[in-house]
């Protein structure tokens, strides 16, 4: 049994304690926006926030998370896709297949929260998520647009 606070709601989940948070989110909590990509914290598709810090949930056993810690997934980043990072992503039409993008967005939101004006070097160092479609340049541009508030809707 694990007691977790996910997107602001505390819940008790019947699961083996060594189960990775990723699979608890996807299979017990029904939040499938967080993706499985590698299972070894290499690709970042599983990135969520734990107390605001971007965390690769595929290698994080739920037993390591305290009930009070705030877990935020892509579904909880904003109620309606209105987080500045999501708006920037929409304005720049960033995703291709989209599978890695929830992880990218969560990593970017955490970066901007901690560093409101990230440089290219900051982005290179902090956004190490893998995208096989190759959206990197638009991810970079969207992070900068979100950081300086310049993102507008593309209609």
């Amino acid at each position: 049994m694990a007691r977790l606070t996910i997107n602001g709601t505390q819940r008790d989940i019947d699961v083996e304690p060594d189960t990775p948070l990723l699979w608890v989110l996807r299979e017990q909590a029904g939040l499938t926006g967080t993706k499985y990509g590698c299972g070894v914290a290499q690709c970042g598709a599983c990135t969520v926030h734990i107390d605001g810090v971007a965390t690769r949930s595929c290698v994080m056993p739920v037993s390591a998370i305290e009930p009070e810690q705030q877990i935020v997934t892509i579904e909880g980043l904003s109620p309606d896709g209105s987080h500045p990072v999501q708006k920037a992503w929409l304005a720049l039409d960033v995703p291709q297949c989209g599978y890695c993008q929830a992880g990218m967005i969560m990593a970017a939101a955490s970066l901007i929260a901690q560093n409101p004006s990230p440089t290219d070097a900051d982005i290179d160092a902090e956004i190490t998520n893998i995208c096989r479609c190759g959206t990197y340049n638009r991810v970079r541009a969207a992070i900068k647009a979100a950081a300086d508030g310049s993102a507008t809707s593309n209609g």
Partner: protein
Amino acid sequence: MTIVQSVSRRNFLVGSAAALGGLSLGFHLPLPGKALAADAAPEINAWVVVKPDETVVIRIARSEMGQGTLTGLAQLVAEELDCDWARVTTEYPTPGENLARSRVWGNFSTGGSRGIRESHDYVRQGGAAARQMLIAAAAADWGVPAGECTTDKGTITHAASGRSTTYGKVADAAGRMTPPAEVTLKDPKDWTIAGQPLPRLDTADKLTGKQIYGTDLQLDGMLNAAIKACPVFGGKVQSFDAAAVADMPGVRKVVQVGETALAVVADTWWRAKTALDALPIVWDEGPNTGVTSATIAAMLEEGLDADEAFIGHQRGNAREALAGAARMVSAVYGFPYQNHATMEPMNATALYTPEKCEVWVPTQNGEASLAAAAEASGLPVNQCEVYKIHLGGGFGRRGMQDYVTQVVHIAKEFPGTPVKLIWSREEDMLQGRYHPVTQGRLTGALDADGNLTALHMRISGQSILAAVMPQRMQDGMDPLIFQGLTVDSPEGHLGYTIPNLLIDHAMRNPPVPPGFWRGVNLNQNAIYLECFLDELAHAAGQDPLAFRRKLMANHPKHLAVLNAVAERIGWDEPAPEGRHRGLAQIMGFGSYVAAAAEVSVTDGRLRIHRIVAATDPGHAVNPAQIERQVEGSFVYGLSACLYGECTVNGGRIEQENFDTYEVMRMADMPAVETIVMPSGGFWGGVGEPTIAVAAPAVLNAIFAATGKRIRQLPLKNHSLV
């Protein structure tokens, strides 16, 4: 995009003309009452449904896997339909419906950059026919000649009588109109929706977690399966101890899948995988345990010298010219196995009963998925159905159907209960359908003036077609191995005129399963040819651009894209301090492409600063999405160039995850400038061609920077110091 499970349980009558034959136009076969749209608004024809609220549903037969074909194909239909783009949505017809309606939507296969270029005519005709039927319905209602009515953004107007109506109001009647016998398509110069850099239709749900991928599918009562096939190619299951994991949490059953694989089925996937990892398995590793990268390389090296080879392109007498050459240059190149490494691992979900088999799957070829479901289930194809789900990357891997076969075999053990199979990343890496391995030896002759008088390009290595589409082999020859190098194929012909030329292939097929991998054989052919031309230019003491231009007088479209990148990067001006440049061009997938790269190498560390790419796809349906495809293709191509390598030891692949199979990340990404220069008159693809010019342009720039020729990829195995 409508999520497919909402229309899952409808049965469709199978017509007599179900043979998988030629394409037929949608509007020739109006079948009232056969609409797909979830709320059952009647269709106007196979391609178009207009709902009473003016929403326009456009049917898309090809699979969306990130490449933007869904938006591009919708633009083409909407252009001819003259509807309001802001009200356009899309849906996938199912493969079963396509079969039942005599393949009214044509080919579902999505690969080879064919989505738009091979269906632009009939999808536009579908939109144009629907427009005429909408006009006819309004005109009949008004009692006016249809020819006097005009349309604009979903509104029909009869100016003379001052009347107007909307598509939604007449859609029901339009669906009962006789389809026009023929339609006239717009001249692309008059396009207002097609040809525009419109945003994608499928972005919003990808930003909030709402987009459902195959791995996300949830069906009532669904079980989950994890699978492990023998990691040694050609091996099979010898024995296993199901009792050892039977009591683990959530486990329902251990299922042997064919001769080669074992699956654990449990209530959740994590529990299935945990039990699978604990399952004692003894493999019969079969005949290939002695196969290594070294034995494969030796096999290919032998092919470089073999007397027997299939000739793909011949002109003059290259062997004779080389024998008498003033100067000869020769080099051997090689390209290793690559895994597709889609971000979403292979997966599929199946629900089997003795009467019906349904499969939900992210697939590049829904009809092939349907055929695989029928074969694995043992049911007639008209008792099977496939629901396509948005792909988390495809790159060619999802054209193969091995995971569909597996999931149906597993689901047969649980009649009436849906089972979702997800491969682990490790399974995905070990059970790939790999970019094939080849080597190329190129030998060129230069005359006393430094002119290229002869070239022999010997390709030795693996045939994709021989393994996966033997019906396309031509008297034992794989024509696809010569991609980009042929005499006059509209798919991709050589852009140089060389007086004496021989390009041939010694087929050598190691026991590692190959597959179509984004860019296919154009990848290595462009590297071999374009890097070797750079070597020849250097040997001749000539500028690489000038050297190429002398060979390209008869190839104006190839030359135009090459000139475009050279001009944009400033080839005639010195590069910025410390930076060096390289060029490449080729034609593939029907399009002409070129790239110019600017790199620096500092203390052995490569940095790719900038790549300029040019593409002439004939017609550009969405220039903004083409730019994204070019950028993305460079990430794919440069990942292979810098890092990508699946090595073989003990008859199995050694790289099991992204920690050892490295790929490009943000920090490696150069600035990309894309020149989209459609010259009209033909339709080329955009998802793949530019992938092929990224690597040779960078490799040629590395030579300019360091004097080092990197001929065996990937770069990570070489020092640039």
